[in-house]
């Protein structure tokens, strides 16, 4: 258990190691005490009963609730991701345009949708759609459009930052060999920019995946509604257990995507295909900061 020197701590000497061991022991005791308290509390409320887990060992639960819910969540996430990526690339490049009449409206759209709380946007689309297109079920439509507008705007900023991070010399050299504007973008800036922005893009897709849970509010058939509302109403008393099960599924999906982002970041740091450093992933999950340019 050697502790490496960090910005905060030097490599500990003999006394330092002793102190660290002491803190470790105390911390472990405190954590164990907290754990024991939680277990006692659970036992108190009868939540440790193994029968509560029984529903999750029957095929019906998975076939009727969790798999349809998962399908709903993944449908919304995949559609949202595809459209958000399209929206993001179009508006990100539009913001870099040389023409003011393209750049300014694109900037306004991106800044606006980044600042609107996503749930308000989804509610609004959900209530507005039947008035525009007649009756029907607009839950999926509202979620996908909301996710597209919001995450697409964030991705537009990522695209813009990714292309701006490429050294000026690259585009200057491209112009010097006689490429046009579209050629510079298509042949020189975008290929390098994509490598740079990939980690940030993937971590925004994790946000998008988590935001599909907002379907809870507009009764969309997603993992949260099926697993946390419908399932416990069929098997009474399983609220806590089903929260744990669907929580684990959400966390596994998000962490798989996150570790893909980390892997991409490592790879693009190694590769010499791009002359720009990889962008920092947008670190704020849920809804990121709007406004600040």
């Amino acid at each position, binding site marked *: 258990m050697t502790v490496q020197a960090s910005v905060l701590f030097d490599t*500990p000497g003999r006394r330092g190691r002793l102190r660290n061991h002491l803190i470790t022991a105390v911390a472990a005791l405190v954590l164990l005490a907290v754990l024991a308290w939680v277990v006692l509390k659970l036992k108190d409320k009868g939540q440790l009963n193994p029968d509560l887990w029984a529903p999750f060992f029957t095929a019906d639960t998975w076939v009727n609730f969790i798999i349809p819910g998962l399908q709903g969540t993944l449908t919304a996430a995949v559609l949202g991701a595809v459209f958000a990526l399209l929206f993001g690339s179009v508006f990100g490049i539009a913001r870099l345009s040389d023409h003011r009449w393209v750049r300014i409206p694109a900037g306004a759209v991106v800044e606006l949708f980044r600042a609107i709380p996503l749930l308000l946007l989804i509610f609004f689309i959900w209530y507005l759609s039947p008035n525009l297109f007649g009756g029907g079920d607009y839950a999926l439509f509202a979620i996908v459009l909301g996710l597209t507008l919001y995450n697409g705007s964030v991705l537009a900023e990522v695209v813009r930052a990714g292309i701006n991070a490429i050294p000026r010399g690259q585009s200057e050299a491209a112009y010097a060999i006689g490429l046009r504007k579209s050629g510079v973008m298509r042949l020189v800036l975008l290929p390098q920019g994509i490598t740079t922005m990939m980690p940030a893009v993937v971590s925004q897709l994790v946000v998008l995946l988590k935001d599909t849970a907002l379907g809870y509010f507009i009764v969309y058939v997603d993992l949260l509604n099926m697993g946390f509302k419908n399932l416990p109403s069929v098997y009474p008393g399983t609220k806590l257990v089903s929260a744990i099960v669907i929580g684990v599924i959400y966390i596994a999906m998000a962490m798989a995507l996150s570790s893909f982002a980390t892997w991409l970041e490592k790879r693009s740091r190694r590769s010499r295909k791009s002359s720009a450093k990889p962008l920092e992933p947008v670190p704020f*999950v849920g809804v990121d900061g709007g406004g600040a340019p």
Partner: protein
Amino acid sequence: MDELIKYGPELAVGFLNNLKLSLVIAVFSLIVGTILAAMRVSPTPVLRAAGTAYVNVVRNTPLTLVLAFCYLGLSDTLGLIFSQEEPLTNSFWLAVLGMSAYTAAFVCESLRAGINTVPMGQAEAARAIGLTFFQSLRLIILPQATRSVIAPLGSVFIAMIKNTTVVAAAGYTVDVANVMKTTFDTTGVSIPIFLGIVAAFVALILPIGYFSGWLAKRMAVAR
């Protein structure tokens, strides 16, 4: 326009509820986030592991699930009740609990990233001139770390303010999103009402974004 004027007062009350929530959550998440960050950079493996586990679990769970878990799991099933008489007070504090727990994970990550931006040489130089742990923390590391933390922390709080619209999942049904939903249910969808609420959020968020951006630029450490 008429609907916005007619329902204006109710919507304003809802928006004030969001503001109230934001202020309380900001305080709690800053405290918990700082403790978590201290755990994650401590020389004690147990604390580091506990902090990492917490951040990874909470950060990868949808906020809606966290809040619904506080409401249906902690309160309904395990009997965590803040107020017996007032269900709204109870759900207010449940929302604060869930959202603080969630936001704290992000506060922790920004603080940790801030500490990591301080170059190793700074700490080594501080030790070389004989500063103790607390002296080097107070005089060398924290002043530099705080500066690089301002902008990310500003974004975390902006996100938190926008996230307060989700608190209906914790049973706190008097926030502006739910008031908007109720008005849409009674009078049908209204574009002025939506735009009015959006304007209120933009008016709240833009200054925070610009201020934290300005402050971060002003205080930036020249390296």
